[in-house]
């Protein structure tokens, strides 16, 4: 299979985190992996799903269900200091128009939890 996208590396890191967790805790099967992916982050959820099966094959994560929770974008305006929703990483503040809004949520790429048995 020819895959050339950074989501492959990201999913490899997810599987590595699961394999690493297996070294710390006893479990024989992973039922699900829950990821938190920021809506304004670097990863495309569909691309993550697309490569998961291939990457997980032959590892403890094989057969696990990949659940992706999308974290919506939110930031703090450096001018009016309001906490504002962000639909675009570089959009100006919807309240005061200031272009500098610091992203505080929506850039996540995190393994939140595993359901194991």
């Amino acid at each position, binding site marked *: *299979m*020819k*895959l*050339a*996208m*950074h989501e*492959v*590396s*990201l999913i*490899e*890191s*997810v*599987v*590595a*985190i699961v*394999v690493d*967790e*297996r070294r710390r*805790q*006893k*479990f*024989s*099967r992973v*039922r699900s992996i829950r*990821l938190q992916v920021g809506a304004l982050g*670097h*990863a495309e959820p569909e691309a993550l799903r697309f490569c998961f099966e*291939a*990457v997980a*094959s*032959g*590892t*403890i994560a094989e057969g696990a269900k990949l659940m992706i929770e999308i974290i919506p974008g939110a930031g703090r305006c450096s001018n009016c200091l309001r906490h504002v929703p962000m639909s675009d*990483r*570089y959009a100006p503040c919807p309240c005061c128009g200031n*272009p*500098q809004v610091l992203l505080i949520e929506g850039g996540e*790429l*995190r*393994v*939140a*939890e*595993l*359901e*194991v*048995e």
Partner: protein
Amino acid sequence: MCTVCGCQNAAVSVDFVTGPQSPGHNHNHTHEQPHFGGSGDGEHNHGEHGHLAHGNAGHLHVERAVGLINFGGGLAGLEVAGLSQERTIRIERDILSKNNSYADINRARFNETETFAVNFVSSPGSGKTSLLVRTITDLQTRWPINVIEGDQQTSRDAERILATGVAVVQINTGKGCHLDAHMVGHALDRLPQSKGGLLFIENVGNLVCPAAFDLGEANRVVLLSVTEGEDKPLKYPDMFAASDLMLLNKCDLLRHLDFDVDACIAAALQVNPRIQILSVSARTGEGLAAIYAWIEGRATALARSAEPSQ
């Protein structure tokens, strides 16, 4: 096995194109993981530099070498026996944490050797290698320079860099679309140690994927050639947001094009109000003095901050 990180899964092979220790070709990269890099194309890199590997063996280029590192492997399987109860484990780990920890190791190495490391990113064909060749030619009497070249296949770029006389390691990422900090760490092992020098890392030509991967560099420089669209910073904002300097390259061609420089600069500043912008031409040399001044300023500031404070 890797002595730094203990990894066994990355199919690493190194080919010294020049130098007395030239071991020959790198046929030994593995394809045992069928889901990555396992597309049966095991023919890369040999033919075109084979004659160099043999012809130059045994003389001259002791401190100069093209090292070629191939990354093609995936994750090793893990067999698990025994039963345990169903439960949920909270992990809360950043997916990029592993890359970031390797980046921190690289950064510590750069600090230790007082190396100013720059990560050059752009889409393919923006002129990264031409700019580096010219920059190295002009600056190598001022600084010791090492280069890491990233491409999916071939060591063509490394051969061009090698012709300038500096040490270079080519990383072939196989199917990978970016360099990561782990690969760079392996490449650093292959480069001569020099104190107070420059390290130029030429990333894989790609405006998307390399944005997410910190390599431990001090600064990131994005090239945009004027034969591309002026709205690229808006179309690929992550890369421009993550860069410290934008070089508008091939500006000698502007008179033939409809490229709107002001619109391009506005687009770049919209996604990154802090980005510095220089118009350059690697071909004519226009604007290169400004890049060299930028390098001089950054590298000197870095060296000063590395000095003991008493």
